[in-house]
């Protein structure tokens, strides 16, 4: 789950990371009022789940409250990568001496959280990694021991020669690590970490991505989700416990299991079709899920044919069949449907479908070919 900059900063601040004062505004007047209370130059920053906000014109320096109002007017409502800006962060503008990058991610290879730090901050870390990899220090953290002071200091000295700054940065790493663990992150970044001309360290931008699997046990973090800033159909799917990603094709896919779902999309493409979505109904059997899946898929006007590909293991195929029957009774389909079912309770499923006027096959390859043909207007 993505959270906004202002939310990530709030978490970081509560763990001791120095953050410039800031508040969120949803109207230009609010932005002006916030800038007035600070009485200094401010930054007005679009709060959307997208990179490249600066390049898109979503981050502006404002000398005066009037200026902040004007910039907020321009930014609120603008679109950045298809997402409408609903909120801006109004934050005290920091004097910037040097900029560094500090991030942690969970790394598959070492099976540990790994710090990445670089004195070349403020720009895309991907670019640094590609062009000057020696400018990044990687430090894996063994969570059994936490982040030891010596590793934090090692990173501090990698960023700064001055021992006072190195110590300050080391403390920030430890706070960042604590925040990362406490919030259940898969990624946390401070970019840039700034040294002001007076020698203070400040986290001028902050980013956090939360592991979705943490949300059940962290209601405070789960509450940070901003559904207004996400694709509505994906929000809908998530609330129905489905994994759904909208794409641009016309073959709506309903599959159980992420691997089989991807393989199904690949096969659609292989036979010249275009998948309209990735949709994994998951492992547990529940007719309700199928009902929701059909509702979400049919809401997409691009969808010209629907393909079910279910291999029943934990999933009982009779539950899926019942779901199809229930959903189509309530809302009759306007596009053709191709059903492939095999595995657990397959015979019962076939019986249910047949009795309700559906045909179904047990072969994936032919089902996919058929769906592609139907989406193209064939029979």
């Amino acid at each position, binding site marked *: 789950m993505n959270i906004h900059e202002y939310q990530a900063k709030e978490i970081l601040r509560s763990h001791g990371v120095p953050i410039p004062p800031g508040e969120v505004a949803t109207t230009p007047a609010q932005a002006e009022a916030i800038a007035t209370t600070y009485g200094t130059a401010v930054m007005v920053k679009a709060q959307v789940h997208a990179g490249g906000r600066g390049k898109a014109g979503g981050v502006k320096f404002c000398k005066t409250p009037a200026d902040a109002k004007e910039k907020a007017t321009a930014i609120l409502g603008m679109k950045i990568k298809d997402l409408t800006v609903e909120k801006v962060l109004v934050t005290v503008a920091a004097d910037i001496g040097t900029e560094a990058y500090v991030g942690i*991610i969970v790394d*598959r290879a070492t*099976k540990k*959280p790994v710090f990445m730090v670089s004195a070349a901050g403020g720009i895309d870390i991907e670019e640094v990694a590609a062009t000057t990899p020696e400018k990044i220090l990687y430090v894996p953290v063994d969570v059994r021991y936490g982040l030891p002071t010596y590793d934090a200091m090692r990173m501090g000295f990698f960023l700064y020669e001055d021992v006072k700054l190195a110590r300050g940065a080391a403390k920030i790493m430890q706070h960042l690590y604590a925040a990362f663990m406490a919030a259940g992150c898969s990624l946390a970044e401070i970019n840039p970490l700034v040294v002001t001309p007076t020698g203070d360290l400040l986290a001028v931008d902050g980013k956090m991505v939360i592991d979705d699997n943490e949300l059940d046990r962290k209601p405070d973090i789960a509450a940070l989700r901003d559904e207004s800033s996400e694709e509505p159909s994906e929000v809908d799917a998530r609330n129905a416990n489905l994994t759904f990603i909208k794409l641009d094709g016309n073959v709506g896919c309903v599959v159980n299991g992420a691997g089989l779902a991807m393989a199904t999309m690949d096969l659609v493409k292989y036979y010249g079709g275009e998948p309209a979505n990735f949709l994994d109904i998951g492992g547990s059997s529940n007719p309700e899920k199928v009902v929701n899946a059909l509702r979400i898929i049919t809401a997409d006007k691009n969808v010209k044919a629907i393909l079910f590909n279910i*291999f029943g*293991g934990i999933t009982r195929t009779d539950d899926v069949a019942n779901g199809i029957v229930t959903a189509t009774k309530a809302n009759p389909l306007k596009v053709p449907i191709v059903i492939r079912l095999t595995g657990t309770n397959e015979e019962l499923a076939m019986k249910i479908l047949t009795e309700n006027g559906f045909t179904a096959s047990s072969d994936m390859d032919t089902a996919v070919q058929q769906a592609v043909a139907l989406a193209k207007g064939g029979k």
Partner: protein
Amino acid sequence: MSVFIDKNTKLVIQGITGRDGSFHAKQMMEYGTQVVAGVTPGKGGQKFEGTVPIFNTVFDAVKATGANTSVIYVPPPFAADAMMEAAAAGVSLVVCITEGVPVLDMTKVYPFVKERGVRLLGPNCPGLITPGESKVGIIPGRICLPGPVGVVSRSGTLTYEVVYQLTRAGIGQTTCVGIGGDPINGTNFIDCLEAFEKDPATKAIAMMGEIGGTDEQEAAEYVKKHMKKPVVGFIAGQTAPPGRRMGHAGAIISGSSGTAAEKLEAFAAAGMGISKRPMDFVELIRARLK
């Protein structure tokens, strides 16, 4: 012959009285797996289906029954503790079916099981099956057939699909292993390839990967360097939108973007067979068994 489990596997089921646990316990018992114990705190002393003794802790279960393998069907918040309990209690193989285990939990579980020399499969995996001998997890037994092919996969239902195709074509399996698709899991492709290479009954290997990470690339490297047996590979997610299943930062660390193209290239460089569709495994494997 087989890898990891066989007819001597003595299984304890953690969460045996839960919805999924009880369903699959019966499936495994029907398949012939030696289910020697179940664990549900508070139900110690009872019996599952009138035959399998239930214990309050895995410690009690292992002590009383000599179970050497555990399979876990407990909800995500309890899964990490369940894996550690199994490893601490002395089984040598722990299979965690549970989906949705927080990845930070796994950063702790992984070294825990490693330092005890215990093999962990999963989490978020379908388990494994040695056709005709033993099944641990949720892979449907009737789609499998004893035979010469080792199957290893990151995905659940995709594994079923491929195994089913092989079985329908009369090509049996030594052991089918679902390693799970989570970012941090206990057993990876290389572990399985190594085991299959050592297993005299395995004559060819079918391997199903996914986009994301570099496990498949490393596996290909391993095949190239260490394997005499033929390996056929598949990658799911060739048409998946980039950046939705893995972050940029992960790509930076691994020096790889984890795309299907990159993985397939590694397979080709390792001299592996490449299955373009799931069903293409049949002919590719058949050719390599001759």
